[in-house]
């Protein structure tokens, strides 16, 4: 009597005995690459990370991840010029992911729901002085508080917020948003001392027994070039005008207003003038549109609101109600040169927006702080020449771009450096990560956005950054937008590697745990790497 079952003529074993991994000449490895959005974010947000949470509708988790880098999501969702979107790989497929709009949605949701951040760190007993409550100071104060330090923010103005309150016009950034995000930081135990300009940093540090200081005083003083002006000429500087307007002084600008300058502040001043009833607002800039420092969307918005632009012109004289403009030409190096051709313009007021300076008097006593160029020069950790005194934001010399986002990034970096400094540690430099380039993606896998939602999407983009009359994204649209993220360079658990392996050599570890290769059987064919939608698998040579 045979022991074998009927019709099986041969005893069999499993092929699992045959370890085909020995055939391999290349092995797959999972990698985590730096997505372009994260790489471009001056505030060092893990944008892809919080979008991942938002994709599943975990808005609070998304917000908390965002808050690890940036304490001002609702502000940033309005005031940031989103370099993340400019660098988004999805631009090459259809259009960039509306990151900024999702950020604003999360920020607004947090304010609505009253989400707060708890300080988990035990108190360190160290005291840190923060001078200025603009985005840099707020960011530094928030991160220092999270690290258990006692933080006192000294602010010269009657209310906290710095340029968020006194620089950026309300149509771009409503004040209740600023109030809510400042209040959340205050709720973490940060003390705000208002109406309290710091005259001398060293004196305030000594009297207040501070262990370190962060100076984030911004660039609040409009540059005043020498423009010969006669009597009765109404000449204002843009920063003071915007600040004064915020404090309730309604400047009388008249019907025809000229704004001199080509930066974002010039656009803010011009658009504010329009809203204050000017019937004709003209921006005068000495070079051409493509050389304007203002962000494109600001210029487009200003033009959409009726602001006129006069390129290649300088203001040479302001006299009563009359301006003398000189025409310019660009030379071979792209510099504006005089032509000697003049033109007269009737105006009611002239607003100067030619850049801003910082009042550095508070650091005069500190001889070891380098103030060359009218800025506070700092090292890579935002520390000045005086150990323990740090600086950031528009006032610091390493502001590649003077934006709210860069300031928040400075504040966070300074906080980490201060935390190390008061503890006698040195700051470990962040490890370099290879970029997640678009060539690494297998874009075939990304579903095309449904047609019905496209027009809404574009409308959302149009309104998301400037016109506060229009609301933010609905939860449904935010979810849609977050799901447009391609997760460049980092596994998002799509199961493709697990599915496409002809040798079952990928092990699925479960939700959140990703996958592992079973090198006993992996033949190194490389299908997983080529079919990974987001480019998170590399093939590396085996060394036998």
């Amino acid at each position: 009597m045979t022991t074998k079952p009927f019709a099986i003529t041969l005893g069999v074993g499993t092929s699992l005995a045959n370890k085909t991994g020995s055939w391999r000449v290349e092995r797959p490895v999972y990698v985590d690459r730096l997505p372009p959005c994260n790489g471009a974010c001056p505030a060092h947000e893990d944008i892809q990370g919080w979008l991942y949470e938002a994709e599943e509708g975990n808005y609070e988790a998304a917000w908390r991840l965002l808050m690890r880098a940036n304490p001002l999501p609702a502000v940033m969702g309005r005031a940031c010029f989103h370099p993340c979107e400019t660098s988004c790989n999805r631009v090459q497929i259809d259009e960039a992911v509306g990151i900024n709009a999702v950020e604003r949605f999360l920020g607004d949701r947090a304010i609505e729901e009253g989400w707060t951040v708890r300080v988990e760190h035990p108190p360190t007993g160290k005291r840190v002085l923060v001078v200025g409550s603009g985005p840099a100071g707020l960011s530094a104060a928030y991160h220092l508080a999270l690290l258990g330090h006692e933080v006192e923010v000294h602010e010269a103005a009657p209310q906290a917020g710095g340029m968020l309150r006194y620089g950026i016009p309300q149509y771009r950034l409503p004040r209740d948003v600023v109030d809510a995000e400042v209040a959340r930081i205050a709720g973490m135990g940060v003390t705000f001392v208002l109406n309290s300009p710091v005259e001398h940093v060293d004196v305030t540090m000594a009297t207040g027994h501070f262990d370190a200081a962060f100076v984030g005083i911004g660039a609040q003083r409009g540059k005043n070039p020498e423009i010969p002006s006669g009597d009765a000429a109404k000449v204002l500087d843009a920063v003071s005008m915007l600040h004064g307007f915020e404090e309730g002084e309604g400047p009388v600008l008249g019907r025809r207003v000229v704004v001199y300058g080509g930066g974002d502040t010039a656009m803010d001043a011009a658009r504010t003038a329009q809203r204050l009833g000017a019937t004709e607002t003209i921006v005068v800039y000495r070079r051409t549109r493509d050389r304007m420092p203002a962000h494109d969307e600001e210029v487009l918005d200003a033009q959409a609101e009726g602001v006129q632009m006069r390129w290649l012109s300088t203001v040479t004289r302001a006299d009563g109600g009359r301006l003398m403009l000189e025409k310019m030409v660009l030379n071979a190096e792209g510099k504006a040169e005089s032509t000697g051709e003049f033109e007269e313009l009737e105006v009611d007021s002239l607003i100067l927006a030619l850049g801003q300076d910082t009042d550095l008097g508070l650091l005069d006593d500190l001889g070891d702080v380098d103030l060359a160029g009218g800025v506070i020069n700092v090292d890579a950790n935002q520390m000045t020449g005086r150990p323990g005194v740090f600086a950031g934001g528009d006032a610091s010399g390493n502001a590649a771009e003077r934006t709210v986002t860069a300031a928040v990034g400075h504040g966070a970096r300074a906080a980490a450096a201060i935390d190390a400094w008061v503890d006698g540690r040195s700051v470990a430099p962040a490890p370099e990560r290879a970029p997640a380039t678009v060539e690494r993606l297998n874009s075939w896998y990304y579903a095309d956005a449904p047609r019905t939602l496209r027009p809404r999407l574009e409308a959302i983009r149009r309104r998301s950054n400037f016109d506060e009359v229009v609301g933010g994204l609905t939860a449904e649209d935010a979810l849609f937008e977050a799901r447009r993220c391609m997760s460049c360079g980092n596994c998002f658990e799509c199961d493709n590697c697990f599915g496409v392996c002809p040798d079952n050599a990928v092990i699925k570890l479960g939700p959140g745990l990703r996958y592992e290769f079973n090198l006993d059987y992996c033949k190194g064919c490389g299908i997983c790497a080529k079919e990974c939608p987001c480019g998170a698998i590399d093939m590396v040579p085996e060394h036998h």
Partner: protein
Amino acid sequence: MVSERTPVRFYQVGSFAVGNRLVALDQRSAQSDPERANSLTSGHRACAGCGEALGARYALDAAMRATHGQLVAVNATGCLEVFSTPYPETSWRIAWLHSLFANASSVATGVAAGLRAQGRSDVRVVAQGGDGGTADIGFGALSGMFERNDDVLYICYDNGGYMNTGVQRSSATPPAARTATTQAVGPHPGNVFGQGKDMPRIAMAHEIPYVATATVADLFDLESKVEKAMTFHGARFLHILVPCPLGWGSLSSDTIRLARLAHETGIFPVFEAEHGEVTSSLPIRRHTPVEEYLKLQKRFAHLFDKNGEVKDAETVAHLQALANRNIERYALLTEEPS
């Protein structure tokens, strides 16, 4: 099929990737399930990047899910049989039997008859083979199985030739392809135009309940066709394109890419038919010229120069014309992608 894809609002990768953490578990593919049948398990001796090993697991795991594991597979001789069962090892984790090259469909007919005699209506029968075992050697037996409408799903894994014996031509080898028996020499190098068999259309001519084609590049489409086939009784035919790195002279990592290009160029139309009539086709998402498909394969290398530029424009145009004919016949380019 397209109309049966998960009705996604927008799920990042929709139903194109194998899984998707954003959709409900029951809407995910059989392959995304960590507890999938793994009908063909690790340790098999298929070449690295084998499309047939992948296609067989995709199809049989889907069949196992559709039949709740009550499945018998009958295998024709061919690569799949050779690489999965060198004595004393087997890679099969399902009830599996092999008899001869030519008789897989006859054996399957017998298995189905035996089960019917025993009253086992719960157990379903699959027969499978390569394009040689299907279109050449087992063709007569298969046609008989179709004609009798026996209750078997026959799956053909088409890699376009006799690969494990040294890449000889079969009646499924595409025109102009170089094989060991159709060398790239003479005025018309490679396999000749106008010969060969179009198996899905031959199957349709038998007016059997269900005929479908699929590729290893679109898993959801393939799985839904296996599942649909299991809703019918009688003879059914599923023709799956499975690229072969060895026989096609392609990179082992390009297997799925080539299957995708075969569809996106129109060279391999993906469609389904019931009782002899085409009922739906899978639209091309990114229409691509045939060169992009051809130039990745050494079996078509004689059509290109050293820089990858087309050398034999006449032959490429001829292949493009065949692709265009498929696009028109199966309406593969639609204005409104579903």
